[in-house]
């Protein structure tokens, strides 16, 4: 791989009062990546983004952009541009003036400004609204202005702070596709901050999951979902059933474990476990059957349906196995009967140990 476009090395940000918003974070972001910083509110993701843009200064550590140390580069001289959560579209300027602003203040020639502004407005499909003032526009349109205003500067890196959080659900889906399309068209590195796992999973090529100022895991969306390293990541990305397990025997490629709820089974893992571990099973990997399923490898237990939540395409079922509630997702793939189960029904819960995961941290 080539040299990373952004290299964050041991960056810590301590606010007055000794609160560490970002704690010893190191991330390398490659050219043309669509990178997401994902985490619950207060995990330090926005602070990290603001440090990349230069609006905050790290307490310690270094940030390199394009190989250059940015320690003494103020935000106006950095090759990054930001789309703010509130969009921050200047209310006293028209759309055109907003987009032209960043070029004007850096002394770009007037005819070039005109050309590039037209191009940028074309790109976000706002050419017909060039003369509008922001207060005559919808939230989605204002966001496009903010996008055009940042992209027209041709930054090396575009920073997006919770870009979809203020939009309604339908618009959010459109914008998600739009952002992915834009990122592919302009070929700029995008770094997006979000607390919404769906947003991160669907758009990003790689995701850094952050928790309490630190990085919990950096991986592709699929790896994060299927191979979470910690309980926090497993629980934060999607839904998961976490079961405490006692380790009976450790082999080279497998372990034998005993869970209170689902009994004893063998499971594949490279991890070295002590005497205890957590077994993670995604709700869609659990199966519900009326009869006891046949299959040597399947782990199976009788259960009672406690609750069924209907979501159209899927139903989320809560199954009671010896007093422990397991969440099971069922595809509603036939029109009759939905999940085919109802509250109070006796049923079998089964899963293939291949689909379960051993977590030690």
């Amino acid at each position: 791989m080539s040299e990373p476009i952004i290299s964050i090395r041991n960056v810590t940000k301590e606010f007055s009062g000794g609160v560490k918003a970002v704690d010893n974070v190191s991330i390398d972001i490659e050219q043309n990546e669509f990178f997401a910083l994902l985490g619950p509110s207060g995990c330090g993701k926005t602070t990290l983004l603001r440090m990349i843009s230069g609006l905050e200064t790290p307490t310690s550590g270094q940030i390199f952009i394009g190989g250059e140390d940015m320690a003494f580069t103020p935000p106006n001289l950095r090759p990054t541009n930001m789309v703010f959560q509130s969009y921050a579209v200047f209310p006293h300027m028209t759309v055109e003036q907003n987009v032209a602003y960043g070029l004007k203040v850096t002394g770009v020639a007037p005819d070039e400004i005109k050309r590039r502004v037209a191009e940028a407005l074309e790109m976000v499909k706002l050419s017909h609204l060039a003369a509008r003032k922001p207060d005559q526009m919808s939230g989605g349109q204002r966001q496009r202005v903010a996008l055009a205003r940042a992209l027209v500067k041709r930054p090396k890196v575009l920073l997006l702070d919770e870009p979809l959080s203020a939009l309604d659900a339908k618009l959010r889906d459109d914008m998600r596709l739009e952002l992915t399309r834009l990122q592919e068209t302009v070929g700029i590195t995008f770094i997006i901050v979000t607390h919404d796992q769906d947003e991160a999973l669907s758009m990003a090529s790689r995701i850094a999951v952050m928790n309490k100022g630190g990085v919990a895991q950096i991986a592709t969306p699929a790896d994060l979902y299927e191979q979470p390293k910690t309980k926090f990541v497993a629980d934060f990305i999607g839904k998961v059933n976490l079961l405490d397990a006692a380790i009976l025997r450790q082999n080279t490629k497998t372990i034998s474990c005993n869970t209170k709820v689902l009994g004893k089974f063998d499971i594949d893992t490279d991890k070295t476990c002590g005497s205890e571990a957590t077994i993670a099973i995604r709700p869609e990997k659990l199966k519900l059957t009326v009869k006891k399923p046949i299959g040597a490898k399947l782990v199976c237990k009788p259960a009672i349906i406690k609750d069924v939540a209907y979501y159209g395409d899927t139903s989320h079922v809560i199954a009671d196995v010896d007093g422990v509630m397991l969440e099971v997702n069922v595809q509603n793939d036939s029109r009759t009967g939905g999940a085919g189960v109802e509250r109070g029904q006796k049923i079998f819960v089964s899963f293939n140990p291949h689909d379960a995961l051993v977590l030690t941290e």
Partner: protein
Amino acid sequence: MDDWKDFRRVFWTLASPGTVWMLVFFIIPMAFLFVLSFSSKAVVDGETSTTAYNYFSTLGNYVAAGGENYLILLWRAIWTSALATAICLALAYPLAMAVCFAPARWRPLLLLLLILPFWINLLIRTYALYSIFRSTGVVNQTLGVLGLGPFEMLNNTTAVVMGLVYVYLPFMVLPLYSTIEKLDRSFLEASLDLGATQATTFLRVTWPLTLPGIITGIILVFIPCLGTFLTSDILGGPNNWNIGNAIQNQFLEANNWPFGAALSFILVYATSIALLLQWLVARRSKGVDA
């Protein structure tokens, strides 16, 4: 808000006390003064009456008020007020910003310090200034110890302007503070992020977005300055009288109410013109709430 038409009784109940007050103590007296400014004192039994007037009998008061002597006083009021307002703005803007950027727990205290002078009567404060700066005042005595002076620091236009700035500075800071405080910081951050320097950001983003506060501050300072008579009298002396002193003189000393009324209304017209200009400017910079 609900439409007042749907709640007429509530509307009138709430609106009446203030309306009646304004009618009795503002509209009626001003109307009376307006009439008076076109009137002359009546002559009863060969003597000029002090209470009876020939209403709407003359334009003479305005003709006299338009005389050179009084135009000089009006002009002096306008330019000293303008100067005082400009100095107030120059001092108040950074001050208001400083208060906004101060830690949140300090802000109430800083604002309190700012309005502290209002707890003391204006007359007393002005005399206090007088006693500090007069030729035998504290400043000159201190300089005298060092072998300097005494300097004449009062009875000149500078003293009047400084006095006005001192009195009206809080009226400029408070509206500025409230607009700057409401200003979304992300506008400034966006400007920096887009490549503008701090200075450019101030000129192209901060200033235009705080223009409503600036205009309110200018109105709150300029208009009272225009009618001032206390400051110009005590700190400026007779040579620095302006239109306010002339009005005071006509009402209280010369007892020529019609002429005083005409002078007053000239001041009202000047103020109206200033407000009209403000409205025109505000209309041009639409999109920013005035």
